[in-house]
């Protein structure tokens, strides 16, 4: 008799739109070593995306990967990960990841697939329909050009209200490198520009109808108990005004109270972190923190008024509809203003009223210009970094706000040693994967987190998790290398399960008096769902393996220690950042002193320590043979050390 098992649906679906065929491969060959999600997809990327392939080539692959916990009763299990060579990363296209929340992941599993690999490029606009019985590659001629809301509504009319869709808008079709993949109103895979990859493949949408499907659970009774226990431990307080950004302005709070009609959430999530906002004259839409980026400029332009509110909300809704990354817009918008004021924009017809910063015309014109690649929009559609490179003198303005990888600063980097290291050692904005560490550590700076921690509690938690309270002390680089490595491992493991970064690892409990979390939650859930024994250390080890495989891909594509760094401006003191820009730049100004330089020598020392802890060559940043052997990454050993 075999033990009960569950979690995985059992197969990976591979759809080649060039040859118009599809095949099923068993998940098993990936699950043992890499679990699912980021792990599974990174393995596929290692095997199938060679160095010379560029992001928009038909040879690039786009992998949508769920994990064994996706779509189950585990709180925060609504997510999946999208992986491929990214057109967005700067200066070079590299393989990276981008999460996607909502309900599509569980639908894919109900249809019988743990992951979907998209290959090739279609000649004509196409969409893919996946049901439990079959896969169809269908003509999307009448969908091409539609915005993401209209596309989904049309597909619902054709395939039923219960189907789930991911799709691209005009921005993805026109291969803007800041294009998103969208689901429902606001669930987005945004940060890695994968909308452009779908656009290059001429795939407008992937519709999944998993009705009648199910996911096996190894120990249902245990899962029920664990879900109950950890939900109480998390003690999730419904997120209210806080969802407008870490340190919301009064405008944001007023706006939120005025227009919120309810909350929404991803599948199976107690957090309800999406507010549903309905501003008259715009389409209703879910919103998270970054979606308010245009409110302050609009209020400056119009004063507090309905026009300002409409402008702010168009800045969000149009991004969702055209399929553009709001996070990049939050950076581009003040960047355009600064470049314009400095007289660096030489284009005669930018495609929108560039002087009217804060107006409805500015934002709707800009988004249209970006998505259609017109005027200045054509330049900026490749991302802020690629655009300013072509404008002499513009880089010095740009690099104030963008620490690395061509992505906008997301938390103060200058005086947060741990966060500076996260940035340097990742391939994209890393903060999305490290909310837990951030929430714990910013408490020391007096940031009003919703977790209501005091410093003594934060220190006690830090001592339990990291063995020292120095781990969250932002006055020093001591211990940060070890902490960053541990957090990265935990994050890679969690992203392979796939669980939400906002809830896991559970560093902080909102229900306990001492606020002490429990970082073993993921492993207990894993055992209950899959029936495979797992403890926290083993799961961290798998996370380490996945992180090293990801590193191996970066190294194979040319990454060295020299590139594990921040842009030069971050190593110089800067003048104080204009608060207006900071506000529109999302919850950014958290720190006491955000003007000081990252100390280069100490930063490099911390990196050396990090490589040593990782078992990487400190000179090159390449994992050494012993490390790879210890992690059972035989495929990498074979390629890196063939003798």
């Amino acid at each position, binding site marked *: 008799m075999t033990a009960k098992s569950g979690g995985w649906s059992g197969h990976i679906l591979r759809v080649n739109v060039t040859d118009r065929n599809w095949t099923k491969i068993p998940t098993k060959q990936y699950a043992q070593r890499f679990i699912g999600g980021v792990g599974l997809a990174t393995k596929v990327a290692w095997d199938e995306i060679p160095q010379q392939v560029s992001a928009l080539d038909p040879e690039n692959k786009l992998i949508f990967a769920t994990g064994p916990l996706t779509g189950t009763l585990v709180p925060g299990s609504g997510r999946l990960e999208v992986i491929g060579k990214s057109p967005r990363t700067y200066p070079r296209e590299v393989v990276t990841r981008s999460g996607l929340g909502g*309900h599509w992941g569980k639908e894919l599993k109900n249809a019988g697939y743990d992951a979907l690999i998209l290959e090739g490029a279609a000649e004509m606009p196409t969409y893919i329909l996946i049901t439990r019985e079959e896969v169809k590659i269908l003509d999307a001629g009448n969908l091409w050009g539609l915005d993401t809301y209209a596309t989904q509504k049309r597909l619902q009319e054709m395939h039923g209200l219960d189907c789930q869709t991911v799709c691209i808008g005009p921005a993805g079709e026109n291969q803007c490198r800041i294009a998103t993949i969208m689901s*429902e109103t606001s669930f987005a895979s945004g940060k890695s520009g994968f909308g452009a990859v779908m656009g290059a493949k001429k795939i407008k949408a992937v519709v999944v109808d998993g009705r009648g499907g*199910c996911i096996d659970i190894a120990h*249902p009774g245990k899962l029920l108990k664990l879900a*109950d226990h950890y939900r109480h431990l998390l003690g999730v307080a419904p997120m209210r005004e806080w969802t407008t950004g870490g340190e919301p302005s009064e405008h944001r709070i007023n706006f939120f109270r005025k227009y919120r009609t309810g909350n929404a959430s991803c599948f199976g999530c*107690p957090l*309800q972190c999406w507010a549903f906002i309905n501003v008259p004259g715009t389409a209703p839409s879910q919103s998270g923190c970054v979606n308010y980026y245009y409110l302050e400029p609009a209020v400056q332009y119009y004063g507090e008024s309905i026009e300002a509110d409409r402008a702010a909300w168009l800045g969000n809704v149009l991004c969702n509809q055209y399929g553009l990354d709001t996070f990049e817009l939050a950076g581009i918008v003040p960047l355009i203003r600064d470049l314009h004021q400095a007289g660096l924009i030489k284009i005669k017809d930018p495609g929108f009223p560039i002087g009217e910063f804060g107006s409805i015309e500015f934002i709707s014109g800009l988004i249209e210009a970006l998505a259609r690649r017109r005027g200045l929009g054509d330049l900026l559609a490749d991302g802020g970094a690629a655009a300013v490179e072509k404008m002499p003198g513009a880089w010095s303005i740009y690099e104030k706000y963008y620490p690395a990888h061509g992505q906008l600063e997301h938390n103060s980097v200058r005086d947060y040693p741990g966060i500076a290291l996260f940035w340097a050692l990742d391939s994209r904005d890393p903060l999305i994967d490290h909310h837990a560490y951030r929430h714990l550590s910013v408490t020391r700076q007096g940031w009003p987190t919703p977790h209501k921690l005091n410093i003594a509690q934060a220190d006690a938690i830090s001592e339990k998790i990291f063995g020292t309270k120095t781990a969250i002390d932002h006055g020093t680089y001591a211990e940060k290398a070890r902490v960053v490595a541990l957090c990265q491992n935990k994050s890679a493991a969690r992203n392979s399960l796939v669980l939400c970064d906002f809830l896991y690892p559970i560093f902080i409990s909102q229900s306990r008096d001492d606020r002490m979390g429990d970082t073993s939650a993921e492993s207990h859930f894993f055992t209950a769902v899959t029936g495979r024994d797992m403890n926290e250390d083993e799961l961290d080890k798998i996370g380490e393996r996945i992180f090293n495989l990801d590193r191996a891909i970066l190294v194979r594509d040319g990454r060295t220690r020299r590139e594990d760094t921040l842009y030069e401006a971050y190593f110089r003191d800067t003048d104080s950042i204009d608060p207006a820009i900071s506000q529109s730049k999302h919850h950014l100004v958290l720190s006491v002193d955000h003007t000081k330089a990252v100390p280069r020598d100490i930063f490099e020392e911390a990196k050396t320590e990090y490589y040593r802890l990782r078992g990487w060559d400190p000179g090159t940043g390449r994992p050494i043979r012993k490390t790879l052997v210890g992690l059972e990454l035989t495929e990498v050993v074979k390629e890196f050390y063939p003798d």
Partner: protein
Amino acid sequence: MDLLTKLGFSELNTRTRRTVVVNPQACTGCRTCETVCSLVKTGKIYPQMARIQVARKPFEGRFTPHACRQCSVPECLRACPSGAIGVSRTTGAVLIDPKKCDGCGNCIKACPYDMMLFDADKQKAFKCDLCAGQPRCVKYCPTHALGLAEFGARRKE
């Protein structure tokens, strides 16, 4: 099963009626209720077998859970030709005796709320049984969009 399969007026007046009540304003459409229901009833995550169903309108931000009303005069009970449907004396839930159900589907047509469901594998009707008085969907709903209401409760002790 200790079921009242014929409802007289006197019994109607004295029985306890409990039902899952819904507050759509608070619902975020997370479908935890469906998930937990199917897990308890089938041991799997099996949304189609959930006794409670969420109607989602994501583009309007409207999410509405639909649960059996456990009607005081159940149409399903009246429509059943095999006497398989009755009311529990202990919980007040409208229940189906699977031994008597022959899968004719009359109850499904009769239910005005579409909350009588059909199991194609077993060829039998199924519905919410209030988890013997302690519905898990209510317990696990993260936003308190679901509650258990009790009407006309008269405890015998």
